[in-house]
């Protein structure tokens, strides 16, 4: 495929989309007919890179070329290259000198926080200045991983939890190491990709999903460089039981629909990285009502062993102490809520409620339990308090498939 065609398409997407006063065009989806065969083609500009895919799974097929021609306005072209491998260097990429700057800025932030201490960090101008510096030297717009780090660090500093803050900072220190290392390893590459997105010139190792049925069980707003900068939706794959996160930055779009909803995913990309893995739903159909059999399936795939759950959780935070925010669907064997809340599995392992985060939801959950509601399963973000595995509840459903979002 022509590089000129791709360049022209990128130019037109930027000219007509990126600078439009009405908003940013990040993805175009169109139905293209070639020789009576109709396919849906998705074009998206991500980190300066044009990604093209058609609903028959090809990214350089005739439908993709026709779509690019449509966008580019039928310009002449004379050479060919596969889409997805060509790099467009933009201001959004992180050049080697900037990488070193970012690593230094992260180190400075680490020193600023540990020097002043967590208790005083929230009022410390040195910490604010270090955070500003990190944002300043980071690529624009701030990559989601880095943004989430800033959001989580601010949150932990505010709540005054030194151990949790140490974990967040440890993740940043590992990123700084990965950015500084001369000869990149697979692990360091993966870490950088999780924090800063794919490096210019690299081919992101995306897993493509076709024809999956998923149910969104929960969503929440998370802090990044600003409060409530990302809406995160949790999608459960009814076939494999995997849980994905779909992140929608504020002022941007993602897949449409309410929570809960069932979506039939025609095509989606899954990024490797911290749990839960990030998904980009490219082609989908929405059903605002979730059928009973899907609720039943969710109950079947919910985790029943808390020991296994804890192992999974520990592994996730060991690898990504900052970015891992595991989410789980749990079917407890028994719930005790007379004197505190404890969910038990069949082997007697315990799971407690995280009380401080999402306080209102915890209270509402507890009130409903006191009213006699018995959850068949519940979903929530995993965390730990002291050394106990806890869950911050987001939603639950009864055996009658009465779903409640918390």
């Amino acid at each position: 495929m022509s590089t000129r065609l791709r360049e022209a398409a990128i130019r037109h997407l930027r000219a007509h989309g990126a600078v439009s006063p009405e908003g940013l065009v990040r993805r175009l989806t169109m139905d293209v007919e070639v020789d009576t065969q109709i396919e849906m083609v998705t074009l998206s500009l991500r980190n300066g890179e044009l990604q093209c895919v058609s609903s028959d799974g090809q990214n350089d097929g005739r439908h993709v070329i026709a779509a690019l021609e449509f966008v580019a306005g039928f310009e002449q072209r004379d050479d060919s290259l596969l889409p997805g491998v060509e790099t467009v260097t933009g201001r959004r990429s992180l050049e080697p000198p900037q990488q070193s700057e970012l690593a230094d800025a992260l180190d400075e932030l680490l020193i600023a926080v540990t020097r002043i201490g967590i208790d005083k960090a929230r009022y410390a101008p040195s910490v604010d200045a270090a955070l500003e510096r990190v944002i300043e030297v980071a690529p624009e717009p701030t990559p989601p991983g880095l943004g989430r780090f800033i959001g989580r660090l601010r949150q932990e500093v505010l709540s005054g939890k030194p151990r949790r803050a140490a974990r967040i900072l440890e993740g940043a220190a590992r990123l700084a190491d990965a950015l500084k290392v001369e000869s990149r390893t697979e692990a360091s590459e993966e870490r950088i990709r999780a924090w800063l997105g794919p490096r210019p010139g690299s081919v992101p190792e995306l897993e493509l999903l076709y024809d999956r049925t998923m149910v969104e069980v929960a969503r929440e707003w998370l802090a990044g460089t600003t409060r409530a900068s990302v809406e995160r939706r949790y999608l459960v794959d009814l076939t494999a039981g995997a849980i994905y996160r779909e992140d929608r930055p504020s002022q941007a779009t993602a897949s449409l629909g309410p929570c809960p909803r069932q979506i039939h995913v025609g095509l989606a990309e899954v990024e490797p990285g911290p749990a839960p893995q990030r998904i980009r739903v490219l082609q989908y159909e929405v059903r605002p009502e979730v059928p009973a059999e899907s609720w039943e399936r969710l109950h079947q795939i919910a985790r029943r062993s808390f020991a296994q759950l804890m192992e999974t959780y520990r592994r996730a935070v060991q690898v990504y102490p900052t970015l891992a925010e595991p989410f789980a669907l749990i079917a407890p064997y028994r719930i005790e809520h007379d004197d505190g809340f404890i969910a038990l599995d069949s082997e007697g392992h315990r799971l407690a409620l995280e009380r401080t985060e999402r306080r209102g939801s915890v209270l509402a959950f507890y009130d409903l339990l006191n009213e006699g509601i018995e959850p068949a399963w519940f979903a929530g973000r995993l965390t730990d308090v002291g050394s106990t595995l806890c869950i911050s509840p987001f939603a639950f459903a009864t055996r009658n498939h009465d779903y409640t979002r918390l």
Partner: protein
Amino acid sequence: MKKPVNRKTTPNWTALEHFLREGIASTECGDPREELGCAADADDREVARELVRATATNDIEEIGTESLHPEAARHPSVRPPPEGAADPSFLGRLSATGTGDISVDQIDDVPTILAVLRAGSRKQRRAALKRLGERLRDRRGVPNDALRAATQTITELRDVEIGYELARLRTELPGAPGRKARSEHERWKRLAAEIKEAVRSFWDGLLDVEPIHVLPGDDRALLLMRTPELPAMVMHHINAIIEGNDGCVPRESRVGLLASFRNATDRRLVPTLVAVIESARGELLAEAARVLGGIDDPRAHPALVERFERSIVSEERVALAGALGMHGDCRGLPEVRSLLQEDQPASILHALEAMESLGSSENSELVVRFLDHSDIGIAVQAARTLTRISDGRVLDELGERYNTTSVPALRAAIEDALSAIAARMELRGEEVAEIDWSEVGNKPAPRQGSRDSLPTIVLGWRDYFMGRLWLLLGRINWAVARFESAARRRAGWVVPLIGIGMAFARGKQYALALPAFRRAIELDRPRIERNPILVRAMAKSFLHRAEQVEREGRDDIARGLVGEVLTLDLRRAPGTVRFELKRKHDVLGKEEHDDVHSAA
């Protein structure tokens, strides 16, 4: 040359946590280098790295080593102690939820329940209505007079804020009111079924417009009044619109939809409202806060507090303060008071609204002065706020305004306020204020028609009856011509004008109905205001015409129409229509132009 490493076998984790908390520069707990096994001359970068690495590694390794950490085992339902009631009287201490020492569900005396229904807070009124329903179902020990009074109150009460609870209770009444309520419920069921199908089509891509957004205003208000009975799928759809995840509804319409839920109690809205409170700004946030304030749910208060503490925009803070007031948290009162004292035009209306839940008798003097405000909307809101504050000391002032104002809507609001204050005084054990309506009811005399000669009267009635006949035969134009002829013959005769208005309203020709209604109002306003059928047709005509011109993009004209009809006494119009008119007025513009003529 670096000094040798002095590594301990096992670090003291408590000491490391202390260093993290207090900072490595702190000297209270010794030198962190020693604890971490760093070289004595290691720089801060190395110490900081080692400190977070060691702490994080140990913290993660510890996960699962303890069956139940004491912190995790703490009871999750521990709530902050409730703030002391500002009002120590019976009504101030009366609990709506059954948790306090005096609770509405313990009251057996029907007159007391009726007084709470007039003078209580929104939650108390809801609880009183529920209790009244229970007393009507179990009539043991209830005197017949009290039963009659209760039935009459339920039939006649026009409290939009508890519209859903009223509508439900009315379906249980015997006779015509019950039949009417049941018939309205059937209409709602049909509408809900249609909407459910339309929602399904919308998500299937068969409809390109959002189905609730395009409903006529009164139908939408009717549909959303019974939110708790809506199917789950419709509620999920509504939540998607409010969150902006439907892909087509513009922001202004989201604000409008949120305003429709001002009196909702459905907990299924709470997660979405909390999400909007967390993420939105400006008008959208303010509307979400107002809705959330009215829903009794443990998720509401923490979300409102968190946002109130970090918001700096006045519009948002006033709405959040009012919503917190509904949950018994008066932290925003000083700010709302100061806004009213500063008399900032942009904030008065919403500050007065917030004062409904925040205000006490100490604030009544501050509110009373807005009864004279040139903006009728603000004056009416001040009367509503005084209704909720219910301070007996403002009775005289209210009576005086009642006699001096010529705006029917303000007179109606003052009547409600006087009645609520009397009920509150009764509940407080004070001497019941007997309102002498002959004194305060110094209403302007309706315009008397000129005396017509007998032949003129006969000819006028002949034309009128001919008009009715043509109407029966479906000849609207001929009928209208006859009505016009009758009106020409007798200049002060309102009946044919009402006939024209009603004929056009039934034919959904609202633009033609308005002039007739306006002429009728000019001749004999009380006749229309006191007749529920006429006032409903008139209010709906104004509402639907406003929607028509709004769809044409002429928002100013729509705002003018809604503002015009809101100056009338609409208490006999259906609650859904009144609510929708008020909502549309709020949504169409913050400030009504001064040059909008009063319909009075």
